[in-house]
C-alpha cells in the first residue's frame, strides 16, 4: 500500500485539519512515518506549483488553495475576509506565533503590559488556541491553523526571521531574570 497516496486521499476528503496521530491510527503506520510522508507531500506540492498546498500547525495538516489564487477563490466564494487587526492584537499574535507555545506571563513580560483582554479576544476570534498543561497547571498559547491561513504561509516556520526570533538569545535571560525580581 502506498502511504502517501492514502494520505493524499484523506487530506482531500477532509474539510477539517487532520492530526498526525489521528492519521497514523487510521492508516496503521507510525506517527513518524506519517509525518515524513506528509512533509514530502507538502514539499512536492510546492515544487510542482500546484493549485493547492499542504499547510501545518501544531501537528495538524490541511490542504488549502495556493496563495497565488486567493483573489480568484475569494471571488468564487464571495469571501469578505478583510484581514484587519489592531496593532496590539498584531503584536500579541506575532509574539505568540514566533514564541509559541507561550504562557500568558511570558507574553506579558515581552509586551510589558497585561494581556488578558487581548488573549481573550484572539481566542474568541479563533486566531489563538489555549492548551492547559495539567502538570504545570499552566496554560500555553499558540496560533491556530486559521491564523496560518490568514497569513498565506504554509507553517509558522515560514515566517520571516523565524529561526532568529524563535530563539532570541536574550529572551530566556530576560524571562529568567524577571522571575527573580
Amino acid at each position, binding site marked *: 500500500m502506498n502511504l502517501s497516496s492514502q494520505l493524499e486521499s484523506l487530506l482531500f476528503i477532509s*474539510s477539517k485539519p487532520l492530526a498526525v496521530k489521528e492519521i497514523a491510527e487510521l492508516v496503521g503506520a507510525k506517527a513518524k512515518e506519517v509525518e515524513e510522508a506528509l512533509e514530502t507531500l507538502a514539499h512536492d506540492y510546492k515544487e510542482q506549483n500546484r493549485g493547492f498546498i499542504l499547510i501545518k500547525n501544531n501537528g495538524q495538516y490541511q*490542504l*488549502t488553495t495556493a496563495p497565488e489564487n486567493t483573489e480568484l477563490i475569494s471571488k468564487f466564494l464571495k469571501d469578505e475576509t478583510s484581514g484587519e*487587526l489592531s496593532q496590539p492584537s498584531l*503584536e500579541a499574535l506575532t509574539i505568540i506565533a514566533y514564541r509559541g507555545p507561550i504562557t500568558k506571563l511570558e507574553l506579558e513580560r515581552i509586551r510589558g503590559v497585561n494581556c488578558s483582554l487581548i488573549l481573550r479576544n484572539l481566542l474568541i476570534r479563533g486566531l489563538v488556541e489555549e492548551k*492547559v498543561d495539567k502538570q504545570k497547571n499552566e496554560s500555553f498559547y499558540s496560533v491556530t491553523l486559521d491564523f496560518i491561513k490568514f497569513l498565506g504561509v504554509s507553517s509558522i516556520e515560514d515566517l520571516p526571521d523565524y529561526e532568529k526570533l524563535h530563539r532570541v538569545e536574550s529572551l530566556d535571560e530576560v524571562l529568567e531574570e524577571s522571575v527573580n525580581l
Partner: protein
Amino acid sequence: MMELNLEKFQGPLGILLKLIEQEEMDITEIALAKIADEFLAYVETSQNIGPEEMADFLVMAARLLYIKSKALLPYLISAEEEEEITELENQLKMYKEFVEASAKIAELVGAKKFLFSPVILNKNFRRPKKEKPSFVPPAGITQVLLHDRFAELLDRLQAKEEPLDEKSLVGKISIDERIDYIREMLSKKLRFSFSQFLKTASSKTEIIVNFLAVLELAKQRELVFEQDELFSEIHVVFRNDDISN
C-alpha cells in the same frame, strides 16, 4: 467603547520605543535616562491610560527615574542594580525585534493571500452560512465526567495566587498642592522660617511633603535659603530675579 480604547492602547514599552526613536537614539542607558522626563510627562497627561494599565506605567516610570538618578549619581549604584538596568535595555531591545516582526506580519496579512480549505457549497455556490451556535452534548458524556471536569475547572481557578493584602493610599496632601500653598505664602510674606513652617505639619508624611515641596521650589529657583551661621535658623526667601543678581 471601552473595548475599543483598550485595543488601541499602547503599553509602556511601546511608548518608550517611540520616545527613543524620536530622539533618534539607540537603546542604551543614556537614551533611557534622557527620555525619563518625557515618559513621566506622558504618564501625567495621557488620557489613554486606564487604571489597570497605570500600574505597568508607574513601574516603568520608577525604573526610568532610577536609571536617571544613576546617570546623575553613578557612584551610588551597586553591581546588582547595574544588572537591573541592563535587563530593561534587553527587554526593550527584544520588544523592538517583535514590533519589527509584527510589521512584517502586517505586510503578510495586507497582501491578502488568504488560504482556503475545502468547503461544501450550497446551491448558489456560496459557503453555507455559519450555523447558529447550539449545544450538543458530546457522545459518552456522563454525570461523573461533568462533575470531574467542573472540579478541575474550579481547581484551576482557585490555584491562582492569593491576592496581596489590599491597602488604599490615603489621599492626604500632594507635593503639587504644597507647592501652590508655599507660593501663595511667599507672595504674601516674601520670607518665612523653615522650622516654623515644618511645625505646622500634622504628620510625618506632611513634614516630608513640605520638605520635598520646598526643595522642588528651590530647584525651580523660585526660592532660596538663607542661614546666618551654621545650625542657625534657616529662612526660606522668595527669589526675586531683580535682587538676586
